[in-house]
């Protein structure tokens, strides 16, 4: 650091993050599909010319960690990189997450040298799969999955489109205009990155930028060393399991071995002790296996550290070839690599951290794409029966509790980590011929704890006039989000249908269902708790009761809090003496079990 201006270090690092945010804003504003606009299912990053991730601002960890593998595929496959190039890459066997995440890569040249790669990745509304969904959990292999796969294919030369490739996509991807609109938005974002990186490099000179890169990685590594040095030493093996469905009747077991070595300032995340690849679309790609387990790690430590190749020098991820959470063996399908098993990797890792070391890690949060986030389709008689198809984001899925903070209510799922937006009831009813009947907090669904998980919501909706089809891929029905350190589990998720007569029937957790007018589809998902609920401050339990998160009964029996009179107004008063006695009683009960 002595020979590099520390102020300049800060200025250029800040500028790189700012460039990434500018790329992301471009994508958010000009993208067409709801997946982009509402779910915010996209990320941008800057990678160095020698394929190290350097800047990712606040991108989704599942997207940005491993972007360097995409750039690596580009430099390995093409020895004629030139200014004006852009590449489309979505190959899960060559560094991508899953086929539905299209990535645009633009190499950035300064003084004739390939100094950076600007990358924009976005989940597509459609990627040419065999069925009209980007999630194919039942696909036996990549052929049955059916997605178009692009191993870092050139789509721009001299800043002009390679029309052959565009035409291929427009022929095989549903709603081609929507795809092309999102493609343009991604190319626009990557080109903005290119322009800004060029300006920056010209301002300071390529030499200074190259020295900056090394200094910044060293600085980031120092931050990570500092964090790991303060972690307790040890090794722990954590286990989790994805819900059973069709091809996997026992569910999918996951084993994560975490070793923290503060002396060498290294963390090892070992996924080698896991089952082989499955004949289903649930296999992790190499990138997803790595970045999801790392997300679990980053959820568990200081959020202020940069997330780049310098930091990653202090993390060793061990993967096995042909493992469901390792390096996939072709042609096993990775169609749902970013959700489901991927989410389980995140929550299992963070919860294992919490189990092992007090004050670190998180409980488990809701996983999967529940019925509230389903892809719905049908015909709209208000618009002369024209077809509609889109993913909706209604209600919420609850987040996990941590050592100090209750779970985030509009968490979404483990890979979006709260960043996702939520649909307006009125806008959805205007856009689609549906009626939303109810959206309220599901009482007593929170994982109880000293810090509680977020409760789920009860959302019900259905078609107004004509049959509607809904596809969803939920989890947490058989194996709900686990609490940690004495905290309770979140309530199991339930997909259900309300029939015309008002009775409720439960549905398969992963399904495509038809709903008749008058029928409603519903969901309930929540997050796990952290620590003993008997230690939760009684005033916070009172808040939860007044918020209708927790019933009086649950306050008494799970949290051991007794009130003077059970009224839902702010005269509600905790009786300290009776609460203490009730807590003693429950403690003894627990001990006896």
């Amino acid at each position, binding site marked *: 650091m002595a020979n590099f201006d520390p*102020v*300049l270090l800060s200025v250029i690092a800040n500028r790189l993050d*700012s460039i990434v945010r500018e790329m992301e804003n471009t994508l958010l504003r000009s993208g*067409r599909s709801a997946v982009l*606009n509402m779910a915010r299912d996209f990320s941008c990053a800057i990678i160095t010319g020698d394929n190290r991730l350097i800047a990712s601002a*606040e991108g989704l960890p599942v997207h940005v960690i491993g972007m360097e593998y995409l750039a690596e595929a580009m430099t390995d496959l093409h020895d004629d990189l030139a200014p004006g190039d852009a590449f489309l890459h979505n190959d899960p066997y060559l560094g991508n997450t899953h086929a539905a995440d299209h990535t645009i890569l633009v190499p950035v040249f300064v003084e004739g040298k390939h100094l950076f790669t600007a990358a924009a990745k976005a989940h597509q509304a459609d990627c040419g799969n065999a069925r009209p969904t980007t999630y194919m959990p039942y696909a036996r292999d990549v052929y049955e999955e059916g997605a178009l796969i692009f191993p870092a294919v050139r789509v721009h030369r001299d800043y002009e489109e390679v029309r052959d490739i565009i035409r291929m996509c427009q022929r095989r991807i549903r709603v081609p205009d929507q795809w092309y609109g999102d493609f343009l938005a991604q190319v626009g974002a990557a080109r903005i990155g290119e322009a800004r990186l060029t300006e920056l490099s010209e301002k300071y*000179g390529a030499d200074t930028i190259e020295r900056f890169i090394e200094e910044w990685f060293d600085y980031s590594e120092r931050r990570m060393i500092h964090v790991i040095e303060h972690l307790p030493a040890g090794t722990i093996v954590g286990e989790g399991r994805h819900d059973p469905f069709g091809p996997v009747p026992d569910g999918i077991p996951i084993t994560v071995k975490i070793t923290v070595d503060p002396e060498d300032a290294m963390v090892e995340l070992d996924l080698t002790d896991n089952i082989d690849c499955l004949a289903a679309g649930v296999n992790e790609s190499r990138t997803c296996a790595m970045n999801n387990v790392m997300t679990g790690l980053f959820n568990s430590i200081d959020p202020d550290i940069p997330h780049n190749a310098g930091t990653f020098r202090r993390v060793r991820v061990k993967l096995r070839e042909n493992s469901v959470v390792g390096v996939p063996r072709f042609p096993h399908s990775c169609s749902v690599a970013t959700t489901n098993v991927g989410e389980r990797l995140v929550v299992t890792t963070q919860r294992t951290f919490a189990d092992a070391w007090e004050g670190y890690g998180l409980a488990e949060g809701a996983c999967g794409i529940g019925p509230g986030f389903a892809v719905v389709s049908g015909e709209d008689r208000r618009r002369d029966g024209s077809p509609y198809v889109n993913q909706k984001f209604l209600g919420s899925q609850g987040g996990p509790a941590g050592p100090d903070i209750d779970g985030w209510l509009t968490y*979404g799922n483990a890979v979006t980590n709260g*960043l996702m937006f939520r649909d307006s009831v009125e806008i959805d009813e205007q856009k689609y011929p549906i009626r939303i009947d109810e959206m309220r907090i599901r009482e007593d669904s929170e994982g109880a704890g000293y810090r509680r998980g977020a409760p789920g919501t009860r959302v019900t909706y259905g078609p107004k006039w004509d049959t509607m089809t809904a596809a969803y891929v939920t989890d947490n029905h058989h194996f709900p989000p686990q609490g940690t350190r004495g905290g309770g589990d979140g309530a199991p998720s339930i997909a259900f249908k309300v029939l015309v007569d008002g009775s409720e029937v439960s549905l398969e957790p992963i399904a495509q269902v038809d709903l008749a007018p008058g029928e409603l589809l519903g969901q309930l998902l929540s997050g796990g708790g952290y620590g003993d609920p008997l230690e939760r401050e009684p005033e916070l339990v009172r808040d939860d009761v007044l918020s209708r998160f927790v019933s009086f009964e649950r306050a008494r029996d799970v949290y051991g809090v007794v009130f003077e009179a059970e009224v839902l107004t702010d005269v509600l008063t905790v009786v300290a003496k009776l609460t203490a006695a009730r807590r003693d009683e429950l403690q003894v009960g627990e001990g006896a079990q």
Partner: protein
Amino acid sequence: MAYRISVDTGGTFTDIVVATSDGALHIGKALTSETRAFTGIEAGLAQVASELGVGAREILAEAEVLTYGTTRATNAIVEQKTARTAFFTTAGFPEILLLREGGKPDPFRHIPFPKPYIPRHLTWEIDERVDSEGDVYRPLDEESVVRALDAAGDVGCEAVAVCLLWSILNPMHELRIGEIIRERLPSTPFTLSHELNPVVREYRRASSTAIDASLKPLMQSYVTKLEEDLREAGFSGHLLIATSYGGSWRPADIVAKPAYSVGSGPSMAPVAAVTYAETDLETDNVIVCDTGGTTFDVGLISGGSINYTAETWLGGRWVGHITGLRSVDVKSIGAGGGSIAWLDPGGLLRVGPHSAGADPGPAWYGQGGTAPTVTDAAVVLGYLEPTQFLGGRLALDVNAARSAIQTIATPLGMSVEEAASSALVVSVENIVAAIREITIAQGIDPREVAIVAGGGASGLTIGQIARELGCREVLVPRTAGALSACGAMYSDVVTEFSTAHYAETREFPVATVNDVLDDLGRRADGFLADLDDIDPPEVRKEFSVDARYRSQVWELPIDLPVERFDEQSGASDLEQAFHEQHERVFAVREEGQYLECLIWKCRAIARLASPAMAPIEDGAGTAIVSDHGEAFFRGMDFVDTPRYDGGTLPQGTEIHGPAILREPTTTVVVYPGSTLRVTGFGNYVLKIDTTTAARTERR
């Protein structure tokens, strides 16, 4: 002599600006009293009166218009001192205010989920439901209203906010609930969502409704008291209250819709900037910066028009409460004079987001603060002088500032001055990154605009900020210290009427839309006719619509090219205007695509007679140096730096940096390579040499 007065009551200070008939502006500054607006006004007015050599009462008696802006409503919300308010909503949806619209500032940072504006236990579900086509799906169960009202009364609710799904298409149920409230709780103020803010998206409408109802008891007594006090003190002119829309209203209107006073103070800074840009700048594309102790506010003017937004959040985007009302777009960056410099565990110099606040404040205050702040850095560098701050009213503790900066200088292995200068660079970089993101998101390139800078501390670093943005011109008004109050001086009476009516341009229902526009026009005419006694020199109406391309998620506001559509051309001009606006904001257009129109609006504007700016003496460009002192500049070390006193410089004066210009309420640092010119109206324009940026920074 006729005066025009404007007042901006902030949390700490009340700024008063008095314009005399020759257009000269006189500024007073006094402490704010939270309970009585007049206390601050009286004290500030006394300062101006003694400057003018007349009595304060005399000024009031001869004032034609007094425009009043206040942060009272904003502060009441932030401090949770609003009325106890009940929330009535459609059965099945009691969590609208809790769930908001999703989103979180950072994926890895664990923060508590924010509480709703009105708690669940003061929320009542009303049995009713209107559909997206405006049909009644479930009729209103009046019993459920009566039960809710009784329960709300029992727990002491002082106001009621009513927001039902789709009330904007069919307000029948909300109107009936209003009648029932009047019958059963006649003295309780209430707000109906379709009347206050008829927009789609239930969270935004519910949030504005809740905020509005909760402010009613408070703002009613506050404004009434102000009016009484002013009349008693001899004021017989027109009292107008500033709104978040950058205009002003009669007191009765603001009492009826107090949510519009939220954020009215900051919204006036761009109004001032528009006026100054007209007289003193050659461009009408402007970034407006207003620096405070803890925040740096940024507004935008493009093509001479102020930028508006429907997304104003109190307490932070996504996690606070949205006002939901269309208002002047002012974004706050958490960087001010009090931001603290620190070293992170990797040894990197950071500035903010923590701030020293007012107590103990920066180290130089000498009130026991030890953390190094941005203004401490300015003191160490010699930009702020021990005896000159606030016209000498506040003395500086230079030693305290130095020892504070020393705490970062030692670990950085730098001299105190180098460390101070580094802290300013990092602070500037934070602001530059944020401005860049704000402007670019609006399709504006910061290199092609000018800056208007207000706020007492803005002149210290605005030259550096402009240089890093690549912005060549900065206007620092003499009245920079009271920019918002000055804006109120130039504001018009503006209000907006709107109706939700869904229409598609492919089979455009000309007659129905014209009926909607006619009705809006009539309401606007009625409003303007009521202003007869103020006798505005000009009134006009502007029509607009919130529209989007088929199946898009977000709407864009588009000014209508016509007041009525004709059968012949239908909506083709509107489509054309939309394509252009879409391309400007989003860089793409979809020729041939039809539009979905959601909300139709009519803005009624009554321009008031505002004072013309007063030119100052022409001194053929002679600069008079008041004194000299050392100041530290990056890459130059300490250099002898001339100091000038603002009031003494004639128009056309040019000062080359390094130099420092002092005004009673602000200090402008002219960095090496920059030039400051005194304009014909006594304001200051900095010309920035943007090409030197890289050289000086690379050392």
